[in-house]
């Protein structure tokens, strides 16, 4: 049941336990219990909303930063990753394979704000060897959803055999 619930809420976090239960042919109480258990275990970590900020008249700048770091003995990358992700400006942090170690995604109000964060907070950390900052110019698709265009019209004929 877990996997089935997750498939539904992954696409629509607004789906109510009652709806989910109907869709899966389960009891509402069981679905509620399962969701609560998954929240407790950290399988479900939150219910954010996917927003196209460009359309919302809010200035938001996103930057993707490639960071090279020195891993620490006994702690590997986890300690330094934690020091980075605790900043509110940081949206996501991933450990990467390949040419650099961490991808850090920053959200700020302006390029200046993001640049300041990188130059003053991030690159000054002892373990950080180098950074390369890439600003996002336009978002086309996020979390499997195309951001442009809005809801597509149903172009099918109203009645077909």
């Amino acid at each position, binding site marked *: 049941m877990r996997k089935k619930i997750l498939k539904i809420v992954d696409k629509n976090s607004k789906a109510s336990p009652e709806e989910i239960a109907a869709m899966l042919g389960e009891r509402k109480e069981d679905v509620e219990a399962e969701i609560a258990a998954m929240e407790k275990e950290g399988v479900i970590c939150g219910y954010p909303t996917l927003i196209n900020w460009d359309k919302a008249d809010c200035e938001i700048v996103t930057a993707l930063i490639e960071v090279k770091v020195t891993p620490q003995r006994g702690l590997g990358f986890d300690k330094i990753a934690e020091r980075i992700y605790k900043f509110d400006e940081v949206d996501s942090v991933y450990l990467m394979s390949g040419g650099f170690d961490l991808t850090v995604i920053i959200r700020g109000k302006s390029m200046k704000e993001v640049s300041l964060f990188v130059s003053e907070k991030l690159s000054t950390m002892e373990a950080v060897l180098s950074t390369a900052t890439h600003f996002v110019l336009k978002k086309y698709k996020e979390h499997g959803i195309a951001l442009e265009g809005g809801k597509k019209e149903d172009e099918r004929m109203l*009645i077909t055999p």
Partner: protein
Amino acid sequence: MRDPLSKVIKEVEPSGIRKFFDIVSEMKDAISLGVGEPDFDTPWHIREEGIYSLEQGRTFYTSNAGLKELKEEITYYLRRRFHLSYDPVKEVMVTIGGSEAIDIALRAMIDPGDEVLIPQPSYVSYLPCAQLVHAVPVPIELKEENQFKLTRQELLDVITEKTKILILPFPNNPTGGIMDYHDLKALVDVIIEKDLYVISDEIYSELTYSGTHVSIASFPGMRERTVVINGFSKSYAMTGWRLGYACGPELILKQMLKIHQFAIMCAPTTSQYAAVEALRNGDADVEMMREEYDRRRRFLIKSLRDIGLECFEPFGAFYVFPSIKTLGMSSDEFANRLLQEEKVAVVPGTAFGRCGEGFLRISYAYSIEDLKVALERIERFVKRHRE
């Protein structure tokens, strides 16, 4: 002036759906649960392959029976999914949707006066196609208490010396009924003993929600007397590409191909290239869509039952077929008044045969959000007319 029309075409009644379509089209901002096609777009990798074939200038006819690689992929697919085994060279042909295959199968096998058994409620084209070849269509009225399956006794009751073909439309449009292994097995010895041929329309085969679809052609002794019809419209959301296929013994397929060759030439080339991609790399898409339909199916059945409409559980296609008998209205009246009063379009069961009276076809080829809006209106309507 002489009558320009043939007697036979004048006897063919216009589609009941068409009549209703005209009314619905007049209605502004009606919401519809009346379509018989997926709401998904064709998966992008399939569309992309179609586009690529155009870029490559593959804009010529293919051979009459279809692209070699497509016919091969069809045989691999049928073996992998339904344990059917066909020779891609002699026993497969690609058609313009399943519809063409139904038409030419009948044309290839019927002499005037032969009887064609048509279980109903069912898709609208079997009966007229039979009429057009001067066959005698014999409807079999399926019953809700049998989950709209065809039973052995119902079959035995209608067979005469003139019976030649049985059409098997499962998973069924409009009821959503399916025939599982045991249901089919009960018919097999009757079919063989009475020396009938079967046209098995399995266009909804991938949309089966309890176990895997079973084809009648997979039973011993049935392959040589069955034409299996399938296609890409429902399973891969490719209705507009107009692509289906027929498989069967060479003896029959050869003659079907003759009709196809003269009347059609070949199925659209772009669609055929796209279909190769669908069969090679589309299993995950089918699975994804089936899961989504299944969620909607459960949601819709539960909601309709909560509203108080009786509804047997359909395990196939993307339709539910609730009964409205307790409301004291005919199917036509219900559908018309629901449209006028609440602006929701559903299809009266009678559009699929007389025995569809007392039922509605509701499609769940819609998002849960759309279904919810429509269900609220249906609930209001039913409550109002309960008294």
